[in-house]
């Protein structure tokens, strides 16, 4: 598979302009510095600083509504931070105009929670769409590239199916093939394990790791699947109440005594993240009616 992917990379002939070439290889690919973000009055991220080193797979974890997906949207330039700085490959994402942002996005790939496949196209056309949109490659070469990508995710035989004919796991794999169509430098995964059976979950997890290494890319996984993540990632950030609550390697996380990490890793119902939504006194509510 690595050989095939290598051929794919060489065949694309996409040479980014000098301004977009990789900056210093030692510098992290993605860096968030004191990032703040709010939807109107509702603050989502208070002060987030983290970095995604080149070549690594990093997981961002946290409870539902903790702002994990918002982080991906900030990195991809779909949202703008109200404070702080988000840089990708040395470029300040918030400062980019539309054309520069699109040029940067051509070197990023994002896997959406449920795949977001284009429902009016076959599997083949879904994977081919980024190549058709951004390259002038002849149809024969596009055919070869698409088949290589589909082979890499084990779905070459499903090329002529429509998205509606795929299972959840297959759809996620097709979306993964589409995400890597342009051999991106950064892969972003939004809840890639949600709603999958154990076999599909393991397949997607292994694909994320192997594709990252084969492409020489960097990956960010937003998830709350702790057990799968511990097996495939290099580093983990925990987000809670708009801040980085804990961070470390999978080994450090497993052995952590931090109450928040302990609650998350062992799926405990109560702890630093309380079971009860903040409310007034229980007895008063019972006696005094709804409140």
């Amino acid at each position, binding site marked *: 598979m690595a050989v095939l992917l290598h051929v794919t990379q060489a065949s694309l002939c996409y040479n980014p302009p000098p301004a977009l070439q990789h900056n210093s290889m030692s510098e992290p690919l993605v860096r968030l510095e004191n990032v703040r973000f709010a939807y109107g009055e509702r603050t989502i991220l208070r002060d987030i600083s983290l970095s995604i080193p080149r070549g690594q797979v990093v997981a961002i974890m946290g409870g539902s509504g903790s702002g994990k997906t918002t982080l991906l949207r900030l990195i*991809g330039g*779909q949202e703008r931070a109200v404070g702080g700085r988000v840089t990708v490959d040395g470029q300040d994402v918030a400062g980019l105009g539309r054309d520069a942002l*699109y*040029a940067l*996005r*051509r070197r*990023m790939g*994002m896997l*959406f*929670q*449920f795949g*977001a*496949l*284009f*429902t009016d196209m076959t599997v083949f056309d879904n994977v081919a*769409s*980024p190549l058709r*949109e*951004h390259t002038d490659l002849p149809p024969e070469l596009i055919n070869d590239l698409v088949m290589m990508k589909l082979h890499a995710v084990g779905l070459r035989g499903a090329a002529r199916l429509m998205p509606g004919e795929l299972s959840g796991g297959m759809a996620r794999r097709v979306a993964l093939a589409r995400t890597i169509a342009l051999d991106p430098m950064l892969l972003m995964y939004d809840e890639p394990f949600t709603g999958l059976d154990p076999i599909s979950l393991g397949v997607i997890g292994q694909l994320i790791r192997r594709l990252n290494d084969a492409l020489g890319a960097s990956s960010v996984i937003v998830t709350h699947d702790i057990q799968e993540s511990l097996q495939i990632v290099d580093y983990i950030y925990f987000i809670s109440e708009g801040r980085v609550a804990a961070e470390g390697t999978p080994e450090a996380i497993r052995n952590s005594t931090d109450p928040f990490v302990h609650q998350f890793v062992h799926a405990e119902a109560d702890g630093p993240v309380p079971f009860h939504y903040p409310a007034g006194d229980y007895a008063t509510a019972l006696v005094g009616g709804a409140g």
Partner: protein
Amino acid sequence: MVGAIRRLGTLFVNGIWQLGFITRFFWLILVYSGQSFTRLHLTLRELYFSGVMSLLIILVSGLFVGLVLGLQGYETLQRYGASDSLGTLVALSLVRELGPVVAGLLFASRAGSAVTAEIGLMKVTEQLKAMDMMAVSPIARVVAPRFWGGVISMPLLAALFSAMGVFGGWLIGVVAIGVDDGAFWSQMQSAVDFRYDVLNGVIKSCVFGVAVALIAVFEGYDCVPTAEGVSRAITRTVVSSALAILALDFVMTSFMFRG
């Protein structure tokens, strides 16, 4: 009282915001239309879905409207001994008013609602976001082809509606009732002016096409990405399109046919 005034004010301000959004959206569609036309197959595909797939309802409705016009027209005209003018009545009613207006209303219900539903569901399933993250503008790739598909289809459908209506009028007047065939066609030919009647009708249908297509793509793109949000957007498309067609028809008629 204060609450009512406040609600009225909020409604007014929201209306202005909405108008601003839709104008900006329209401008973006025009800006991205060039990109959309370079991928002509996308626009042709939408032309097929909006135009060709609406043919059946348009032709059948046109025929029935023509049949009714023929019956009602004959019943009225024969009271004044002017039943030979049936062709004129049917043709003028259709090319000036009924063709563009009824075809527009049918087009909004059949194609406009489908476009809103399709774009809305693409939003719900994050396909528009995925496109944007692939550095492909959803307005160029999804919205503009559907807009132009609607704009081009509408006048063609209105013309076919009118033609079918005239055929229906002839069928009931000449074949069924026995109005003179020569009088039916010759009176129609002499009374219907190409520029004053036909061209004004075509202009109307073009304007309705822009209005319906714009409302349909905007409502789909702007909908709340939930099942309920899409359903409401579809309802808004049909209601707003119908109101826009009738209001625009009044305005245009008052300018075009002042006697």
